[in-house]
């Protein structure tokens, strides 16, 4: 195939927003190319640059090897089908289609057969003298296509031409467009944000995002081998998971290792893993790779879409007690002393040592003049292995003493037997200064509260996905604050031809070839 159009490093900026960030793209003869992306990704801008309605800031555009940046729109061998058709309301169907030929001053005896042939091609015979403003959207669309194609351009640009049509008509026009393209053998460049449209019609799909081409490939390549999470998300309906590539052919996600067919990643490289909903099979509980529960089932026409939860979210809320600093000052001995209340697990009482109590209460004695630390010489307490509050007193050699309160508690955790998940966390006692000085408060809260979640069956740790609290660590005042540790649930979309029962306990199964591993998207 011959190369028809080349974009070389196209950059375009509007009001300090860079819309195209160096686009390089080759388009060949007789191709149906789709520029796919959400609105604002630059696809229409690229099309308008090719059409000659916008000038790029940098880069070159070649058609048939010739640079065309200085060729005005009306001289380019390109015609466009506009989003809102832009038919001339003062002309009938025939005259709309004949418009380009008349501008070129083609003899009348040539215009008539050409226009009639084109009107027939788009299936509008008998409508030649209709008023275009009184036609349906689909018919106007056909007129717009005929009006562009009659000029026999090298390329036909289509700027979201189907977006104004209803679903049924859109499907019909998709097939029509494909047929027309094959019949006339002209390169079509089609812009859309509709992935289904792109997959149906294109020979080649160009996925764009934020002015950058993400992936170029055939519909099958784009669907089966998306290059990154963005493309996978955009094309089709996928389960996308965070994972880690342990080694070639072995990927870990959702805290388990799976065999896969992917290789060539760095060891332990963080990756995105996708599993298409139609590649997952639903088996009775325990028979597959991941157990879960069917949350909901939706009928989608040819298949059922089930949402299966393999891990329910669990959460545990604790109280963060924020206290003012209670430094004890011993004027005579020129000494200051400090300690805070704390909470401890009943199981830990038996093995208590003085050193540990000093550490847990953060007990310190020092000379306020030179900040020199003084040793704590005596630790006295009546802590018992029974839930309750007990006094704990520290004394220094100079006779300064401070008493704090120790809260002994039963190990408290939320247990969810159905979901086989446990989560534990303790109340935290901290001074205002300690909170304000924290560099990463949610990490510190996890440590202080000893927050931990695990699988009740396998005892394996489950990541705490979120720490939720409603205070600003920089301006916190004395008081009690709730802090919630959350593990998020994991759900999989599964497409099956049989209807699944809601609430049924099931197992999900998939093979190594159903797992597709992608590099994480580069930042920026």
């Amino acid at each position, binding site marked *: 195939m011959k190369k028809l159009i080349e974009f070389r490093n196209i950059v375009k900026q509007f009001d300090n927003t860079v819309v195209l960030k160096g686009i390089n793209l080759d388009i060949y003869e007789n191709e149906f190319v789709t520029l796919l992306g959400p609105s604002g990704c630059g696809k229409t801008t690229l099309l308008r640059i090719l059409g*000659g309605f916008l000038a790029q800031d940098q880069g070159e555009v070649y058609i048939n090897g010739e640079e065309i940046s200085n060729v005005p*729109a*009306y001289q380019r061998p390109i015609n*466009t089908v506009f989003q809102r058709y*832009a038919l001339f*309301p*003062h002309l009938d169907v025939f005259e709309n289609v004949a*418009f380009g030929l008349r501008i*070129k001053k083609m003899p009348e005896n040539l215009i008539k057969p050409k226009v009639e042939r084109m009107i027939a091609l788009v299936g509008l015979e008998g409508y030649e003298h209709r008023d275009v403003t009184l036609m349906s959207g689909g018919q106007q669309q056909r007129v717009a296509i005929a009006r*562009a194609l009659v000029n026999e351009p090298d390329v036909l640009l289509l700027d979201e031409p189907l977006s104004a049509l209803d679903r049924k008509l859109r499907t019909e026009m998709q097939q029509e467009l494909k047929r027309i393209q094959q019949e006339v053998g002209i390169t079509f460049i089609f812009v859309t944000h509709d992935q289904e449209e792109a997959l149906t019609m294109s020979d080649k799909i160009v996925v764009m995002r934020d002015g950058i081409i993400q992936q170029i490939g055939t519909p099958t390549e784009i669907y089966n081998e998306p290059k990154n999470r963005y493309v996978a998300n955009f094309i089709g309906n996928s389960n996308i998971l965070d994972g880690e590539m342990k080694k070639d052919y072995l990927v870990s996600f959702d805290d388990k290792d799976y065999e896969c067919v992917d290789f060539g990643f760095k060891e332990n490289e963080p990756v995105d893993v996708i599993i298409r909903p139609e590649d997952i099979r639903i088996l009775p509980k325990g028979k597959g790779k991941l157990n879960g529960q069917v949350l909901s089932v939706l009928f989608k026409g040819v298949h059922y879409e089930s949402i299966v939860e393999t891990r329910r979210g669990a959460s545990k809320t604790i109280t963060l007690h924020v206290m003012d600093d209670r430094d004890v000052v011993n004027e005579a001995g020129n000494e200051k002393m400090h300690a805070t209340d704390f909470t401890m697990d009943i199981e830990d009482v038996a093995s208590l040592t003085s050193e540990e109590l000093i550490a847990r209460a953060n007990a310190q004695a020092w000379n306020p003049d030179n900040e020199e630390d003084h040793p704590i010489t005596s630790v006295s307490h009546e802590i018992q292995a029974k839930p309750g509050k007990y006094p704990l007193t520290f004394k220094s050699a100079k006779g300064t003493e401070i008493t704090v309160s120790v809260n002994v508690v039963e190990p408290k955790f939320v247990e969810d037997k159905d979901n086989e998940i446990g989560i534990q966390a303790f109340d935290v006692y901290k001074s205002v200064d300690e909170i304000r000085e924290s560099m990463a408060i949610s990490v510190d809260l996890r440590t202080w509260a000893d927050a931990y979640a695990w699988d009740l069956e396998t005892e394996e740790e489950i990541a705490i996905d979120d720490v939720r609290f409603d205070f600003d660590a920089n301006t916190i005042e004395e008081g009690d604050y709730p802090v919630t540790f959350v593990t998020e649930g994991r759900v999989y979309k599964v497409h099956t031809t049989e209807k699944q029962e809601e609430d049924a306990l099931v197992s999900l199964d998939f093979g190594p070839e159903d797992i597709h591993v992608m590099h994480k998207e580069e930042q920026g």
Partner: protein
Amino acid sequence: MKGFRRLLYPYAVWVGAFIVVPMLLVMIYAFTTSGNSVLTFRLTLANFARFFSDSIFISVLWRSLKLAFITTVICIFLGYPVAYAISRLKPGSQAMMVLLVTIPMWINMLVRTYAWRGILLETNLSPEAKVYIGMVYNFLPFMILEIYTSLSKMDPNLLVAANDLGCDNRKAFLKVTLPLSVPGIISGITLVFLPAVSSFFIPKLLGGGSFVLVGNLIENYFVTTGDWNFGAAISLIMTIVVLLSMRLTKHFDYSQED
């Protein structure tokens, strides 16, 4: 829907009292001679015969039509470029320019015409030229606004499409913009030609007594001579001539066709 019809009643009463009844009176007067009483009508075509048998009246009518026609043509040629230029500006500037065009219309037309009389007094222009200046000055804003409205309603994508189909800017204007602004021109013509053909105080003030138009004629017969019957007949003749000319312009307006 039906409930809303009642909202029309006040207007219907207004129209009935101040338009339909006077029009009927004009018709009655036109087809009768003086000396009618409540009980006796003497129907006659004499008023019309008098008008058409006197070449002076015919030439006055002709002069009126010519004046209105030329005024309208000047307004189109002066107004179109202005309207086109305004429609190309940024939306904010467009509103500003439309305001500037409209501002003179805030002042009473009579007052403005008196002002023109003062301005033109010292010049050596012919009465005819003075009348044209006054007419164009007074009616131009209507033409500009109508053309501007039709141009601003035009989908700018149509020009992009014309460009795409091989038109340079000149061709795109001739093939797309101009034909699409015809409805605006037509309604501009309606708004300029109709009042222009029947205007009487502009010719009277600016042309002096020497420039007699149909409007002056009617005024003369109603106000000065007191021959209401003949005045009514002339009014009726002019109404018919105007209706015919409007029918003619509608013919060129594709958008009015079904």
